[in-house]
C-alpha cells in the first residue's frame, strides 16, 4: 500500500515538474502575466507557472541561454537577439498577447489638446521649446521622459521620435506615477505614460500621424480598432522545441477568458 502511494506521489511530482514553466522578462507585461498565471493555476491545479520580471532584455537573454521557457517583451525581438538564437541552433516563436497604448499627457491648464508626430518629435528632441510654437500659451515646454533603460523610453524614441535622441535637458523620472505627479503640478509639462495610468489630474492629447489631417483621441476603443497610432504590442517569445510545453498556457492567455484578464489589468486585448 505504502509503495503504491509512494509511486503515485512520484508520478504526480514528475508530471507536475514537466508542467512547470518559467516566464521572465518585461516589467510592463509582468502584472498581466501574474494575473494570467494565477487564474490558469486555479483552473489547472497540476500546472506550475512562475513569473519573474527584470526587463525585456533580461527575459530574452534568459531565453537565449535556455533558463526560461517564455520571455515576456514589451518590444519586438532585436535583430542581434534573433541572431544569437539562430547561432545557438534555436528557432524563436513570437506570440502577440496584448497591446499597450501610450498616452501623451500635459497639465490640465494647458490649452493645447492635439499634436502631430512631427511636433512631438520636435518637443522631445528639443527643437520646439515653447508652447506658442504649437498653438498654446507663451510658456516654456518642460518635457518629462522615463529613464533611459525603460522599454517605454525605447518605444517612444523609436516609434514617435523616429530613432532621434531625446534632448539632453530632458527630465527623466524613475516611474510612471512620478511622471503623472510632475505633469499634474507643472503648467508647461508634457510626458507620456501607459494609457491605463492616465488619471484625471492630467490631460491627454490627441495625436496625428498624418501630418495634421486627422487627430485621434487616445481611447481604448480607438486603440483597439487600430486608429490610435501610439500602440505597442506585448509579446511572448518561446523556443520552437518547447512549443508543446508552453502552448496550453499561451492558449489560455489568448482565450476569451485570458483576454478579459488583459482588459482588467489595464491593457488592450488583441481581438
Amino acid at each position: 500500500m505504502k509503495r503504491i502511494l509512494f509511486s503515485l506521489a512520484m508520478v504526480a511530482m514528475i508530471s507536475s515538474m514537466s508542467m512547470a514553466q518559467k516566464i521572465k522578462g518585461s516589467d510592463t507585461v509582468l502584472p498581466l502575466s501574474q494575473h494570467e498565471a494565477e487564474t490558469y493555476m486555479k483552473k489547472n491545479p497540476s500546472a506550475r507557472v512562475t513569473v519573474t520580471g527584470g526587463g525585456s532584455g533580461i527575459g530574452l537573454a534568459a531565453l537565449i541561454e535556455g533558463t526560461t521557457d517564455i520571455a515576456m517583451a514589451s518590444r519586438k525581438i532585436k535583430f542581434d537577439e534573433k541572431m544569437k538564437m539562430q547561432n545557438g541552433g534555436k528557432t524563436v516563436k513570437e506570440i502577440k498577447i496584448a497591446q499597450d497604448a501610450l498616452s501623451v499627457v500635459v497639465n490640465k491648464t494647458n490649452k493645447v489638446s492635439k499634436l502631430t508626430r512631427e511636433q512631438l518629435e520636435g518637443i522631445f528632441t528639443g527643437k520646439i521649446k515653447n508652447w506658442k510654437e504649437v498653438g498654446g500659451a507663451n510658456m516654456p515646454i518642460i518635457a518629462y521622459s522615463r529613464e533611459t533603460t525603460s522599454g517605454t523610453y525605447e518605444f517612444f524614441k523609436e516609434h514617435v521620435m523616429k530613432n532621434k535622441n531625446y534632448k539632453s535637458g530632458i527630465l527623466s523620472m524613475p516611474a510612471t506615477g512620478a511622471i503623472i505627479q510632475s505633469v499634474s503640478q507643472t503648467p508647461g509639462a508634457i510626458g507620456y505614460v501607459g494609457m491605463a495610468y492616465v488619471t484625471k489630474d492630467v490631460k491627454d492629447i490627441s495625436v496625428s500621424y498624418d501630418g495634421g489631417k486627422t487627430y485621434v483621441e487616445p481611447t481604448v476603443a480607438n486603440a483597439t480598432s487600430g486608429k490610435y497610432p501610439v500602440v505597442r504590442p506585448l509579446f511572448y517569445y518561446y523556443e520552437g522545441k518547447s512549443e508543446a510545453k508552453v502552448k496550453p498556457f499561451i492558449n489560455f492567455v489568448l482565450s476569451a477568458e485570458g483576454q478579459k484578464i488583459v482588459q482588467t489589468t489595464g491593457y488592450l486585448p488583441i481581438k
Partner: protein
Amino acid sequence: MFRKKKNKFFEILIEWMLRLSGSATTIIILLISIFLFTEGWGLFKSSTVEKGYVLCINKENKIKNLTPEQIKEIFDGNITSWKEVGGDDIPIEPMRMDEVIGMFSEEEIGSDFEHLPERLSDVTAEHKGILGFFPEQFIDIKFKGKVLPAETISPKDYFGGKEWFPTATPAAQFGILPLLLGTLWVSLGAILLALPFGLAVAIYLAELANPTVRKILKPVIELLAGIPSVVYGFFGLIVIVPMIRNVFNLPVGETALAGSIVLAIMALPTIITVAEDSMRNTPLAMKESSLALGATHWQTIYHVIIPYASSGIMAAVVLGIGRAIGETMAVLMVTGNAAVIPHTFTEPVRTIPATIAAELGEASVGSVQYQALFMLGAILFILTLIISIWAEVIRKEPHAE
C-alpha cells in the same frame, strides 16, 4: 586553578574573534572597492560603437574616423553634410539595418539572411554619402565599402564629455561631467542650507536648552536620521517641488534647490549630533573661568566654546557633505534628473547616485553602460573616501588655544 585556565582560554578566543571580525571587515571593504574598479575599468577597452556592429562608408569617402559625438549628431540629423566632419560636400545618408531590410523583399535577403552581406555591400556601393550602421557578422570579404576602424572610449571623453546618453545607438555618449558637477552642486547647496541651521540647533541644545527640552529634542532629531530616504523623496516631490516652482515662479520645480533642501534636512541630524557632542566636550573649567572673568553667556559661547569645538564642527560639516553626496533615492525623485551642466540652483540636475540607481537595474550585465555605471560608482567611492579622510584629519587636529 582549572577555572582560571578556562577563563584565560575564553579571553584569548574572544580576542581572536574580535581581531578576525576587524580584519574581515577590512578585507570585505577592500574586495568591494577592487570589484568596483575591475568592473568599471573595462570601459576604456570598449568600442565607442555598439558591440557587434560596425560603421561603414562608401569607398570614395575620405573620412578616417568619427568621434562618438559626431556619430550621434549625424544620426540625429543635426550634421547633414560630410563637409562638417572634414569630408567632401556630399549629404550624409545615415542608414540602419532595418532600413536596408525594408528596401528589399524577403527573397532578396533570404530566410536565414544568407544574401544580406551582398545587399549591404550593394547599398554601400550605391549610396555615395552613406553612413551605415550594420552588424559585423554580415560584413564579408567581398564588401564593397569601407569599414571605419573601431576606436575605444577614451578617458578624455568619459571625464570631460558633456553629454550622457548611455543607450544611444550607434554610439552611446558617456560624458560624466554633468553628473559629477550635478552631484557636487546639490551637495554644496545642501551644506550651505544645513550648516547655519544645524549649528544653531547644536548651540541651543548644548548651551541654552533646559535639560527636559534637551532630553526630548535630541532623540527626536536623531529619529530624523531613521526615516527612510524614499519618504524624504516623496515628501520633496509632493511638497517642496511645487513650493519652489511657485515661490521662484519657475517653469519647473524639480531643481537642484529641491534636492539641496531635501538633502539639508537629511544631513541635519549628523551635523547637529556631532557638533553638539563636541561643544559639550568643552571642559567645565574653561567655561567657568570665562564666566568668572565677567564674560556674558553669549560671549562665552562665541569666544570659548565654538573655538574649542571648531574641529568637531568642521568634522560635522564634512560628514554632512559625505551624507549628501552619497544619497540616492530622495535625490532621484526631486532633482528632475536632467543630465545638463548646472549654472544656477533653479535648474534640474542629475546626480551620480541617482544615475546608478535608475540605470543599473536594467542595463545588461557586462555591457558598456554597465561598465560606465561601475566607473561612476568608483568615482563616488573616491569622492567619499577623500571626504572621510578629510573629516578624520580635522577631528584629530589639536584644539584651538
